[in-house]
């Protein structure tokens, strides 16, 4: 459980600045969704929070500790990858317990924790299987299990549902929402799917070209978009834009 603070966070790849100064406060236990078009920097920001990318400048604070230069493992953050990234040569149990094994925890303790996690995710009958023997939804649940076993302070999700079929996506969305309710952990979730964003988020962060366009609850963004980009991005079908002429207190459509 932690609050997360980004201040003037920037990232450049060579001469190209892809994240152009982000300021964002995420409260303890909040579910924040990053949305935006492809290449807007939402995944890069998530990877910087995880520690997989170094920030060029700016700071990332976790519970007001500066973690900008901290190793990913020492940040207490877990990440669920779009591709699940399960270790194919390990069983489900070993995949889930991998982080604890690396910390040289007691074997009996690991299997107890693995059993608990498997129970909550309905993975118990699958513990001895290998990832190749699982369906997409089951793999996704294993990836989530690997994330929750260490009781991380922050969960990061990088488009976790985009490889699932539509029906399964709805179901997994529900499971993630339940997980958030049960754990009460801070979660940051990247998606390009508006429905996921609108249904899961406490607050949505709209990204565009390396900047934050607007931050707000789903309904705030929907009812009061801050600018034309957010207005056009949120809502399906998307908002119509008409060129008009302002005449006094009235507007007049030329068409």
């Amino acid at each position, binding site marked *: 459980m932690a609050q997360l603070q980004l201040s003037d966070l920037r990232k450049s790849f060579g001469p190209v600045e892809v994240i152009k100064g982000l300021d964002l406060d995420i409260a303890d236990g909040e579910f924040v969704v990053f949305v935006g078009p492809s290449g807007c920097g939402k995944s890069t920001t998530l990877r910087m929070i995880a520690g997989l990318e170094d920030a060029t400048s700016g700071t990332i604070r976790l519970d007001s500790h500066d973690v900008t230069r901290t190793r990913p493992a020492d940040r207490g953050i877990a*990440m669920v*990858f779009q591709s699940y990234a*399960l270790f194919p040569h390990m069983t489900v149990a070993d995949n889930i317990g991998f982080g604890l094994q*690396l910390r040289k925890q007691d074997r009996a303790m690991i299997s107890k924790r693995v059993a608990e996690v498997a129970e909550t995710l309905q993975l118990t009958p699958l513990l001895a299987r290998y990832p*190749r023997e699982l369906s997409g939804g089951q793999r996704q649940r294993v990836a989530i299990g690997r994330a929750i076993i260490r009781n991380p302070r922050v969960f990061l999700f990088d488009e976790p549902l985009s490889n699932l079929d539509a029906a399964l996506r709805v179901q997994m969305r529900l499971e993630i929402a339940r997980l958030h309710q049960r754990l009460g952990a801070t979660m940051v979730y990247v998606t390009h799917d508006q429905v996921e964003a609108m249904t899961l988020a406490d607050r949505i962060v709209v990204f565009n070209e390396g900047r934050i366009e607007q931050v707000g609850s789903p309904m705030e963004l929907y009812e009061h978009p801050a600018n034309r980009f957010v207005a056009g991005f949120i809502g399906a079908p998307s908002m119509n834009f008409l060129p008009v002429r302002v005449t006094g207190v009235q507007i007049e459509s030329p068409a």
Partner: protein
Amino acid sequence: MADTLPATRFNPWPATIFTILCVLAVLFLLPTVGVLLSSIKTTREISMGELWSLPASLYLGNFAEVLGNPAVHQYFLNTLLVTLPATAVSITLGALAGYVFAKLPFRGSNVLFLGIVAGMFFPPQVILVPLFRLFNGIGLIDTLWPVIIVHSALGLPICVLMMRNFFATVPNALREAAIMEGASEWQVLTRVVLPLSLPALAVLATLQFTWIWNDFLWPLIFTQSDDKRTIMIGIVNLKGQYSVAWGVQGALSLVASLPTLLVFLFFQRFFIKGMTMGAVKG
């Protein structure tokens, strides 16, 4: 069902390929058969008869002579002392360097990689005299050390190339997931990437072992005394002063080729595909 299918047109290709492969197989096997036939004949029988005739009786004296000869034991020991460390060193260094080139590139790493791989293009004849002078200068001639060192070094380009290319097929997300779980780069390599690269390791181990075991040139250059010779030179040493001991040499040739065969049989079970299946995507 089957008899209602329309007659498919005769396709000559499978039969042609099969015939060509059979001819090639026979061509490759003939020398071995020749050696096998000589090894079970007496010297008298060899000098009288033709190479390809079957022996009158199964004579195992050649094998007994080879297996009982202390010099042969020394040859085997020397060859193992060269082959095992050189194989292990080149594959270990190949895996370490390959991991860096595949997963942790740095400025100039591609040029360095090309430089290492370019090492393959030096013919041994070019480096032979300088290497001899070098090892002579530091007093290592007539020991096994130069053979081990040179084989480790010559194995590096192929090992680095193979391991880098195989590691490149292991998804980056797996490395990142392991790092998120708290793995160091060393743990990523040993616990995630290497277990997934068993096919590449098996291929390299087989290749390197066979190549070093069968090598004739380097031990010939760097060793002189009989108790430092390796098995392939030992085969030549077994010829008599006035005559060639075809039978004994044939027997030793067969015995000497057994380890490479065993290594191949041992490692071939790792030559499997699809190890990374199920890692990513659905």
